């Protein structure tokens, strides 16, 4: 049902790695390490700045993909894959966009399941890649049916 959407992408959206949000995020995963939150530690580190935890891009916006409608409920998060060229620096600007990488269906014990693979790219102001974030979302038969009603 999402096969036509493969290859579609969102516009680029500017995000800022906000200091306060990095602190709150680090705290929420029980990782208030000085490299994330203490300015002095950041300054004296090899990065010359504080960095953000690897799963932080979860908070970034990357714009809507035209025509893509996802159900609000019942989705299952199957997989998550990050790749980094370098860690994210606190207060830097990151330009994000998403692409629908793939969609396929498999027969499971509860009926046909859809697998939607999305990939998000995060670049610096010069268009140089910082990270990618891939998510595999599973859409169960029940949810698929509800959507077609």
């Amino acid at each position, binding site marked *: 049902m999402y096969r036509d959407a493969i290859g579609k992408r969102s516009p680029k959206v500017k995000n800022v790695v906000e200091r306060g949000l990095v602190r709150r995020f680090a*705290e929420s995963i*029980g*990782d208030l390490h000085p490299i994330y939150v203490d300015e002095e530690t950041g300054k004296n580190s090899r990065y010359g700045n504080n960095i953000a935890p690897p*799963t932080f891009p979860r908070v970034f916006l990357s714009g809507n993909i035209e025509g893509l409608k996802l159900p609000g409920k019942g989705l299952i*998060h199957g997989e*998550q894959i990050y790749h980094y060229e370098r860690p994210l620096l606190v207060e830097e600007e990151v330009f994000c966009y998403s692409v629908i990488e793939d969609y396929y269906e498999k027969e499971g014990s509860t009926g046909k399941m859809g697998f939607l693979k999305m990939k998000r790219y995060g670049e610096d102001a010069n268009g140089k890649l910082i990270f990618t974030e891939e998510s595999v979302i599973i859409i169960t038969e029940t949810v698929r049916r509800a959507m077609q009603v």
Partner: protein
Amino acid sequence: MTSITELRTGESLQTTLSPVSRMDLIKYSGASGDFNPIHTIDEEAKKAGLPGIIAHGMWTMGNLSKLFTPYYEIGFIQDYQIRFAGMVFLNDVITLQAQLEDKTEEHLHFKVSAINQKGKEVIKGKVRFALY
């Protein structure tokens, strides 16, 4: 603490978290912006056919990465791949684990997982830690 570079193949980094609390998940909802109510509100979880609220998979994945945080001066997580294999419920006691599988001059390769108090893997995957 043993430095990550002194680990031998087969050895692990490991830590056990306090029992999962509702406040943990409320905080993660706020910080991540993922306000799906199955993670915080009992009735919504039950309506979705769950026995109770469950942790965000990304909360567990976020926690797991902290095994590597102390080593930011010698390297960083270059690749981090996770499959969500089971649900995490309130009061579950989660152990985070990273076992060194292989090492080269440039990279440390780990098998990573989060395991509940019954010994079930709730998330599992790999970390490739790049060395400077």
